[in-house]
């Protein structure tokens, strides 16, 4: 049977991908960020998960507001890299795990999570800006991804509680998959930032640090908060951290945080955390 070996929470800021693609590992402005991902990259290299289950959002790149899904699960064999206005990043296409993804889709719908499914769509930086910090892309990716695209752009957003429950349903789906595969959960987004209005540039390190504690010790408390609470505390766009709750909900209740890193250079607080 498939197993969930741990989870990762991570920001998905586009400049993380820019810093990686421009090889800024030793640039003093970026070094604290790269250092923070090293324990996570080592953990993945050591544990060798077959599949990374990625909870992230598209940024009106592949999905547009003429038809915007709340939860969309990728069930394809392969995913293209999306063009977000600057051409393609120099990384290979992502490999999917269609049989497991189809199983998860069936299991979720049977549990009344009526998700959308998609095949070979292009995926944007929401997934691969953190991915390249943790997983080698050369000569090719060491494993497959199962992408879950979450609406955190157009309100109404799914509630934090719904995300946490979805994580638990994803756990049951993965654990009931018959093949002996290792899966790591990834929840992306945040931490505090606001990109719009007079409050653009807002951050709150105190709240971010508290979030990094609560996601470890008391995710139930985060799940009982509202989207308005998350927007007030972490900025309008910061409410996307509800995607960490999907990851957290899918972990064993005994899982604990093993590492975290926090860096706030510009407009978005960049965090990464490892749970096992």
């Amino acid at each position, binding site marked *: 049977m498939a197993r969930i070996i741990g989870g990762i929470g991570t920001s998905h800021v*586009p*400049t993380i991908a820019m*810093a990686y693609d421009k090889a800024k590992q030793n640039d003093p*402005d*970026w070094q604290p960020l790269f250092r923070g991902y090293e324990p996570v990259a080592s953990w993945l290299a050591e544990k060798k998960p077959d599949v990374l289950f990625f909870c992230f959002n598209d*940024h*009106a*790149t592949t999905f*547009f*507001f*003429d038809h915007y899904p709340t939860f969309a699960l990728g069930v394809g064999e392969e995913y293209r890299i*999306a*063009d*977000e*206005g*600057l*051409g393609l990043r120099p990384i290979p296409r992502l490999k999917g795990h269609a049989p497991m993804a189809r199983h998860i889709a069936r299991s979720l719908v049977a549990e009344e999570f009526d998700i959308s499914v998609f095949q070979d769509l292009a995926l944007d930086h929401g997934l691969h800006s953190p991915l390249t910090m943790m997983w080698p892309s050369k000569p090719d990716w060491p494993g497959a991804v199962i992408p879950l695209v979450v609406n955190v*752009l*157009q*309100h*109404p957003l799914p509630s934090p509680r719904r995300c946490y429950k979805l994580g638990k349903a994803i756990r049951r789906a993965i654990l009931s998959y018959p093949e002996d595969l290792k899966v790591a959960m990834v929840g992306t987004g945040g931490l505090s930032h606001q*990109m*719009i*209005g*007079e*409050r*653009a*540039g807002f951050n709150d390190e105190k709240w971010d640090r508290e979030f990094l504690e609560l996601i470890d010790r008391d995710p139930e408390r985060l799940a009982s908060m509202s989207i*308005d609470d998350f*927007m*007030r505390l972490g900025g*309008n*766009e910061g409410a996307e951290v509800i995607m960490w709750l999907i990851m957290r909900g899918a972990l064993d209740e005994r899982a604990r945080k093993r590492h975290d890193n926090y860096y*706030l*250079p*510009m*407009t978005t607080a960049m965090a990464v955390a490892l749970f096992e």
Partner: protein
Amino acid sequence: MAKYVFDLERSAKGLRLNRFLHSLTQKEQRELFLRDPDAAMKALTAEERDMVRRLDWKAMQDYGASFFCLEKLARTKGVSNPQMVAAFRGETLEAFLKTRRVPGAR
């Protein structure tokens, strides 16, 4: 309550403008826009075309543009996110960068 929440009302109001901005994810559309803006924007109203031509980020935002669609226009025109954020705050890029911990990280 939070302001500027991109809800269904805002999404409906901004749909035509956002559809144009989103089209800039296609290389051919970006090239057309840079070469012949009016041809690329023919579905837009005069008011919308004017906001786009002037790169008036705040006016587009107030009108109903999604920040994430505006990013496509910004990338096409070589404008960074800190420049857009400074425009929303009503300050210069230099003034905004003074409020940041690592102004070079962009």
